[in-house]
């Protein structure tokens, strides 16, 4: 069904129509929240609060990318959660090595080899740790661009920042994450280690 019609129904008060939108975007919303907050439970709370706010404010949607409009509510909800709880992303290097994230060990597809799964899990945890070391503004831009695949213009709409600012923050975030991974090179699987030799 056309997304525009579903949105109109939701604006008319149809909860069922709105839930269809929730089902379509909750995966993206949860991933963004998880990568920004670094914790699964906190990310779930932020997503639930964000969808409630979106339902209340559905009449304020005036067209354009509904995905960008929804992600803006999700990111704001994540920032509110972080400020309210006074927390930084809780993942630490020791915690990662001792208790790897259960989500990272889940098979993405049935054909994946176990060793690849482990490697992927270790890589995911380390990258997540590097992401959490970034400042909030750089972290959000790196997650939206490189993890979720949003374009520069969509990131500009979500963050309400000009394109130049988005480019600058993404450049600094990537370089900082690169430096982190180079410093932790021994923790990376060999095939994933950054090759500095030209």
């Amino acid at each position: 069904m056309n997304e525009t019609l579903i949105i109109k129904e939701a604006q008319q008060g149809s909860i069922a129509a709105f839930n269809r939108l929730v089902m379509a975007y909750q995966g993206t919303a949860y991933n963004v929240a998880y990568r920004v907050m670094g914790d699964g439970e906190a990310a779930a709370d932020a997503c639930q609060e964000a969808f409630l706010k979106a339902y209340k404010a559905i009449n304020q949607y005036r067209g354009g990318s509904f995905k960008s409009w929804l992600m803006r509510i999700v990111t704001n909800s994540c920032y509110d959660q972080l400020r309210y709880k006074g927390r930084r992303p809780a993942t630490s290097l020791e915690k990662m090595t001792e208790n790897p994230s259960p989500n990272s060990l889940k098979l993405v597809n049935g054909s994946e080899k176990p060793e690849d799964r482990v490697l992927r899990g270790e890589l995911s945890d380390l990258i997540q740790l590097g992401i959490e070391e970034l400042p909030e503004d750089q972290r959000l831009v790196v997650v939206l661009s490189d993890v979720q695949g949003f374009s520069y213009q969509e990131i500009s709409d979500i963050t309400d920042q000009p394109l130049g600012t988005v480019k600058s923050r993404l450049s600094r975030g990537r370089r900082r994450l690169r430096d982190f991974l180079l410093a932790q090179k021994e923790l990376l699987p060999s095939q994933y280690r950054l090759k500095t030799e030209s």
Partner: protein
Amino acid sequence: MTTADHQPQESNIEQVRELLSAYLDGEVTSEEIAQVEEAVYRSPELRRDLETLRQTVSLLKRLPPMPAPRPFTLSEARTEPGSPLRRTFGLPSWLRGWAVVAATLACVMALGGVFVIQQFGGGMSSLAPAEIALQEQAEPAAESEMPAVEITQEGETLAEPDTEPPPAEEKMVAPELLVEEEALPQEAVEEAEQGMIATDEAAEDTASVAGEAAEAEDIQPQSEAVEESVAAGNEAESGDRVEATPTPVPTMAAMATTTPTIAAMAPAEIPAEESALAEPQAIEEEAAVGDVTENGEQASATPIPLPTMTAMPPAEIPAEEPASADQAEGAVPPPAAAEAPPEPSVEQRAATPQPTATFTPTAMATDVAAASTPADAPTEPRAEPAESKAEPVRSMVVTVILSLIGLALVVTTIIIIGWWLLKKRQG
């Protein structure tokens, strides 16, 4: 390559380094592409940076997606009325904010109006007496027909304009004083010398009294003017002296025959210079007493500071009561009767000067006080204008406040109606 050549290259490398991330995403212009590719070709460091950035981005893209732990769909219960998740009052957030602002403004205006009305209601009643007192002080000073009353600092400025009133008062006082003045010729020659001595003694008394009076600031300027007039009056005619002296001549005429007693009577307010002025004038005027009846001015030329002082209180002291009431009472009892109208006090003074030897400031205070009672009556009517002036102001303030309250309520109503229409149209 020299150092100077390296600097531009380093800045160029740093500039290119900033473009590597956008270059990987294709978010650069054609010129920037050429710049980056040329710099990367020439600089191994830039090549290394570009490669590591590309690998980092690749790792990020390979991160596995995190599945949602549960569905985040909404239920009817979460959106039911009364639920805290329900849209608050059904108003959009932007409209909700304005409605809250308008409601708050209406409440603040209402409370402020009540508060102001209470303040004004109590304030105006408390202000009335003060306004009345000020008016009482101002009116007697303005309406005073006794130049002698205006010997004080304020009266000093009125010295010149007082030339007209004095003559009128002379006419008013002269008939009553004729009896006393007629008695003067008989004794004038005999007592001329005695009068000189008496005046000297009286001058000393008045000087001592004047010393006390000098404490009153309002007397000092007058005393200075009297000194000047004394110095000028010695050589001038009596009439001129009268004009020069700030003291109203007519009031002095009542005491022309009793110069010594007048000097003795001179209250503390009477500057010593005034009594000194009275001395030469008294001598000359006593000699010319026989012409008093013919020349009212001469009669009135006699310096009679005492009547002046007694007349002064009604006009001047009221204006100074707040500041110098205590001083006035301590220095000169007569001035304490600040509210006595000029005319009544002059008449009474003219009627009671006979026992001049025994006339004491206290007695004068009694007379002035007696004369002050009529002055109380005018205060009542003066209160009414003050109140009448305050009422329009108060009503205007109340009107303004009520208008603001009404405006806030109207704005709130408009906002609510607008929202209702908007929702109805969308529904």
